[in-house]
């Protein structure tokens, strides 16, 4: 985890951000992309990252944080090594996602929005994943798991050490 003395944004990241805003009339247009880039590297976006982005994008930290806190998938608090996002929208609800969620909460000993004490998993509800014909569904990191059954869950979790 970064400390306040070291910079969050590396030269390469800054170069990448500069590449992003090149195509737009104003630098601030790259704000969301830049936040995602930071998150790709650190899994979440710290206050310091917001402040450093403010310099690069010629925006105020307030403005960037206003954007960051608007969107679902920008994490402004640390998350675990793996983020489980279970769809809680209507088709998955009809198909019984709650059983899946309850099982995971019990097994991991955490509620939605929490991270396991060992920092392995963060559990989040998420809205419709666009795979309603194969409900219930969840993401773990970048992987989509569909047609979920409670029985498979242990095995799935094992794939994420």
């Amino acid at each position, binding site marked *: 985890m970064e400390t306040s003395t070291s910079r969050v944004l590396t030269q390469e990241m800054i170069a990448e951000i500069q590449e992003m805003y090149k*195509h*737009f*009339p*104003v630098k*601030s*247009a*790259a*704000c*969301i*992309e830049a*936040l*995602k880039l930071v998150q790709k590297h650190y899994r979440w976006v710290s206050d310091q990252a917001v402040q450093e982005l403010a310099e690069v994008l010629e925006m105020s930290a307030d403005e960037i944080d*206003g*954007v960051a806190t*608007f*969107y*679902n*998938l*920008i994490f402004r608090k640390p998350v675990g090594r793996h983020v489980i996002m279970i769809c*809680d*929208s*209507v*088709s998955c*609800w*009809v*198909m019984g996602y709650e059983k899946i969620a309850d099982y995971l909460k019990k097994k991991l000993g955490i509620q939605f929005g929490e991270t396991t004490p060992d920092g392995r998993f963060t559990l989040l509800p998420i*809205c*419709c*994943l*666009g*795979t*309603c*014909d*194969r*409900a219930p569904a969840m*993401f773990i990191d*970048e992987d*989509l798991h569909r047609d979920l059954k409670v029985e498979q869950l242990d095995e799935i979790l094992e794939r994420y050490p």
Partner: protein
Amino acid sequence: MERPLTEHIPLDGSWLRLKDYERVGGYQGLREALKLTPKEVIDRVKDAGLRGRGGAGFATGLKWSLVPTVDQIPQPRYLIANGDEMEPGTFKDRLLLEGNPHQLIEGMIIASYAIQADYSYVFLRWGYQFAEKALQEAIHEAYQAGYLGKNILGSGFSHELSVHISAGRYICGEETALINALEGKRANPRTKPPFPVVSGFFGRPTVVNNIETLSNVPHILSKGVSWYKSLSKCEDGGTKLYGVSGKVKKPGLWELPLGTSFREILEEYAGGMLDGYQFRGALPGGGSTDFITAEHIDVAMDYNSVPKVGSRMGTGTVIVLDDKTCVVGMVLNLEHFFAQESCGWCTPCREGLPWTEKLLLAIEEGRGRMEDLKIFDDLTRYMAPGHTFCALAPGAMEPLQSALKHFREDFERHIHEHRCPWK
């Protein structure tokens, strides 16, 4: 039965590469379009009767014709393909993005030519990684082949296309909120007027169209207006992607003539209800449409017919309510979604939806009161179309108001029995 949008999508889960796309007639529509004037392209799309597949069903050619000419407002001008697809129960654009990205790209280039846009973007929801990868590679192929970039196919028309991945919010699908998101801002919707066709992305003329809408365009240009119209069973042209989710035998997605009946979709394609479950109702076009019930089962799924039974075509992806599922719980789930996804800009939605959600939760948990139903009547009227800043909250009211109309006794039972009868 012809399925121009989906017939060439490989069945092995891969996507249609440029070579294969070209072999089945790909980019012929673009070649045809570049022989015409922009206005002639718009007229063809108008004549074809293509209506927007994003939910509102606005006539596509008409939308394009509202863009001022280049003489009136010079470039830069923009086209945006709306691939946000976050409406609950909706999973149709995914197939087109993952299986046939060149079809979309071709449609975008033609649309851009028609409105003389020099830039276009695909605004893609998060979590469609495969679609993103396919799209990025396809764009690269299209640049290599000279379909994108400077002086496309020697026509003098130049165009750049790129992809933006959303950081996640349902409201980003609303076209003006989408524009704000693309500008790197909070995705609050914008005032209309001015409409994006006049002042959109960075204050420039901008057209926003759905992925499916744009995927239709190459076929209109390459195979002609009358062919396109003949695909449909109703006055509007083309095929439509219909999907079904819920307790049916074969949940899925099918390209069928526009105007196919609801019964046919449910019984023939989705295979009817799972054994032991009865059909009670359905949201015909995503989470923000009104319930229809068994008595409406023969309705033709098109833009003009569904309203006659008190609902909307929406996205054409059906969510089925069965007899073992609590309708109050289902509506509660939907209202929770809408309350969470409210952008927080206008009062009725920001405050009214959480109230709605809390009332539903109270009823579902057996803490409801009969007066609550009166409050629902007030809230649904309060958040009616035109009353809020954008269409999110009115959409959110559709499942609630129709559930109250068709399934009122379910609500009353919860209240009288102080519990959920389905639990």
